[in-house]
C-alpha cells in the first residue's frame, strides 16, 4: 500500500517521497519521541550529580575520605545482577506480547517486578548497614544522593510495571498497540544502565 504523495508537496522540490497511510499516521505519533526526550532530560539529572561526585572526589586527597568505608562491593554486585536480570525479563515480556503469547508476557512481567523489588530490598539493607552517612562526608553526600535518586527511579519503575500489568489484564494493550508498555520497558532499561555507571562509580572506581 504505497502511494506517491504529490499532495504532500512532492511536485515542489523536496517532497516526502512515498508514504503509506500508516507511515503518515506514524509521523503524527508524537508519544515515542516525547518519551525519549523525557528520558534524555532525566538522564541529565544523573549526569549532573555524577559530575558532582567526580568533582568532590578530585577535591579530596583520598577517596573515600579518611574514616569513611566504601560500600560492600559484593552487595552491590548482587544488586547489579538482580537489576540486569530484570532487564532481561522485561525484554522478553515485551517480545511475548508482540508474539501474542499473553501468558508468557504476564509471567515475565511478574518476574521483572519481583526482581526490581528485590533490588529495592537490597538497597534498603545496604542503607541500614553501611558505615557512611548522608551528612557525614562528601562521599556520603554523593553516594546517598545518587543511589537514592536511582532507587527512587526503580521504585517508580516498579509501580509503573504493576500499573501496565493491571492495564493489560484489562485488555489495554494489544500486540499492535502497546505504547505504554514500550515506554515502561524503555524506562526500565534506562534505569538499568544508570546502575552500571553508579556501580562503577561507588563500588569499584
Amino acid at each position, binding site marked *: 500500500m504505497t*502511494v506517491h*504523495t504529490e499532495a504532500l508537496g512532492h511536485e515542489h522540490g523536496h517532497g516526502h517521497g512515498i508514504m503509506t497511510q500508516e507511515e503518515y499516521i506514524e509521523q503524527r505519533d508524537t508519544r515515542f519521541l516525547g518519551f525519549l526526550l523525557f528520558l534524555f532530560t532525566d538522564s541529565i539529572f544523573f549526569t549532573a550529580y555524577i559530575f558532582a561526585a567526580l568533582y*568532590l572526589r578530585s577535591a579530596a586527597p583520598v577517596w573515600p575520605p579518611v574514616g569513611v568505608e566504601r560500600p560492600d562491593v559484593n552487595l552491590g554486585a548482587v544488586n547489579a545482577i538482580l537489576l540486569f536480570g530484570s532487564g532481561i525479563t522485561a525484554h522478553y515480556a515485551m517480545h511475548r506480547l508482540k508474539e501474542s503469547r499473553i501468558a508468557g508476557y504476564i509471567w515475565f512481567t511478574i518476574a521483572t517486578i519481583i526482581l526490581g523489588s528485590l533490588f529495592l530490598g537490597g538497597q534498603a539493607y545496604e542503607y541500614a548497614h553501611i558505615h557512611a552517612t548522608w551528612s557525614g*562526608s562528601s562521599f556520603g553526600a554523593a553516594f546517598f544522593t545518587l543511589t537514592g535518586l536511582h532507587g527512587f527511579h526503580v521504585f517508580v519503575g516498579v509501580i509503573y510495571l504493576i500499573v501496565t500489568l493491571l492495564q493489560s489484564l484489562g485488555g489495554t494493550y494489544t500486540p499492535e498497540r502497546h505504547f505504554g508498555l514500550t515506554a515502561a520497558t524503555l524506562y526500565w532499561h534506562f534505569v538499568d544502565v544508570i546502575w552500571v555507571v553508579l556501580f562503577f562509580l561507588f563500588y569499584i572506581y
Partner: protein
Amino acid sequence: MSTDTIEILRRTEAPIHPAPESFVRKYIFSIDHKVIGVQYFIVSGLMILLSGLFAEAIRVQLTAPHNTFLTPQQFDEAFTFHGTLMVWFGAIPMVTGAFGNFVMPLQIGARDVAFPWLNMFSFWTFPPAVLILLSSLAFGAPNSGWTEYPPVSLQAGVGIVFWTTAVFTVGIGATLTALNFLTTVIKMRAPGMTFTRMPLFVWASAVTAVLSLVATTALASALGSLFLSHVFNVPFYDPSRGGTVVLFQHMFWFYSHPAVYILIIPVFGIVSEIIPTFARKPIFGYKLIAFSTVSIALLSFMVWAHHMFTSGLGPWVTLPFMILSMLIAVPTGIKIFSWTATLFGSNLRLTTAMLFVLGFLSTFTIGGITGIMLASVPVDWHEHATYFLVAHIHYVLFGGTLMGVIGGVYYWWPKVTGRLMSESLGKWHFWLTFIFFNATFLPMHFVGLLGMPRRVAYYDPAFQGLNLFISISAFLLAGSFLLLFVNAFWSLKKGAAAGPNPWGARTLEWMIPSPPPYYNFKETPEVYATPYGYGEPLPYSAPYNSVSTTPTY
C-alpha cells in the same frame, strides 16, 4: 489506497481535541496553545512588572550614598527578588511560554502543540511557583542574589528552601514546555515544510528547547543540592566535611550560561521575523542565521566558567574558557551582519515593532561587546561584581531580550487580539524607552569602571552624582512603560480591526484570520518554500496562498 486517500486524510484530519464549552475549560484550564500563550503572557508580564518594582526600590535606595530607605537586609532581598523574578518568572516564560506557545504552532501550520494536556500542566506549575516564592517574604526571604552562592545562601535561613522550591517548580514547567516544543517542531510541521523551510522563529524555538532540556535539568540538580544542604545538612558545600563551594558555581553556571541564550535566542527569532516583514526583502543568509543559532547553542555549553574567573580556577582552566567565550562573538556577529544586510538598501517601514528591533540591534550589540570585554580574564578580574557587569547584563537582557519582546508584542498584538495598536503612541513609547534605557544603563559602565561594587546598599559618596542620574533615569524609564499599557487598553477598546495580515507578512500565522480560529487551520496547509521570498507568490497550498501581502498598515 490512492493519492486521494492521503489527500482526504490530510484535509479531514480529526480534531485533536474538541472545542471547550465552559468558561473554565476555555480560559482557565485550557489546552489550546493560543490561550496558554496568552496565560503565560499575562502572568510573566505581571512578574516583569513586579520585578521592576523591586528594581525601582533598589534605585530609590541608591539615590544617596547612605540612604535609609531600605535596610541592608531589605536591599539584599530586593536585588534577589529582582533577578529571580526577572529571569525565571518574567523573561524565560515570556519568550518560551508566551511567544513560543502562541506563534510557533501557527508558523508550522499545526493545530496545536504535540501534547496539549502537558502544555496545560506546564503552565499550571507557574502560578504555584510564584506563590511559593512570594510567600517567602512572610517567612524570611532569600537574600543572596539570583545566583544564591553557598555558603552565604545556606547561612541565610529558610528563604533558600522557598527559593529552591519555587525555581524548581517553575523549572519543571519550563522543561516540559521544551519537550513539548521540540516534539512539536519535529513531528507536527505542515507537509512540505522541511527544516530549511521553517520560519526562523521556529528554528529559534526548537534550539531553545534543546538548550532548556539539557540545562534546566542541570539547574534542577543544583537546586536540589542546595535544598538538601539546607534541609538534610548534606555536605556538598561544606569544606570541613569534604565539600567545596566552587562545585555549586560550576553546577549553577552550567545551567545559567545556556540560560542567557534561552533568554536571547527566541528574541533572535522574533527579530528575524520582524526585519524581513518591514524591509520587504528576503532575509539575508537564512541558513547562516539558522545554523549560527545552532552553533551558539553548542558553544554556550562550553563557556560557563567565564562567570568564575575570580574563583581561583587557575590559568589552564580559565584560558580555554576565555577563548571559547570570545568565539561566541562569531556566530552572534553573523546574525547581526545578516540582519543589517537585510536592512541595507531596503525601503524600510518604520513601524513601532521595527523601531524596537532597531533599538534591539544597537543596544544588544553594545552588550555583546562588553561581554567580550568581560570574557577577557585580566579585564574581568577588575570588573567582576562591579556595576560594569550590571551594565553588561542590562544591555543584553533589557536592551536585547526585553526590547525584542516589546517589538514582538507590537508585531503580534494584532494577530492575538484582532485589533491594531496606536502607532503614534507606540513611537512615543519607543523613543522614551530607548532614551531612558540608555540614560539608565550607560552610566553604569562608568561607575563600574570607577570601582562601584554591585549588590551593596551603601556606596562611596564620590559616586553620588552618577547614581542620582541613573536613579532618575530609571524612574522615567519605568514611567515610559505606562504608554504601552495605555496603548494596549486603548487597542482592546477602540483599536481598528486588524484583518488577517496588516503588515503584509508571509509566515503562516498571517494567512488565517486574526484572532485565529480555534483549530487554526481548517485544512492543513502544504508548504513549498521558505516564507521569506518577498516578490514571489506565497508558497502555500490554497486557500492559504490567496491572502494579500500588501501592507494595510
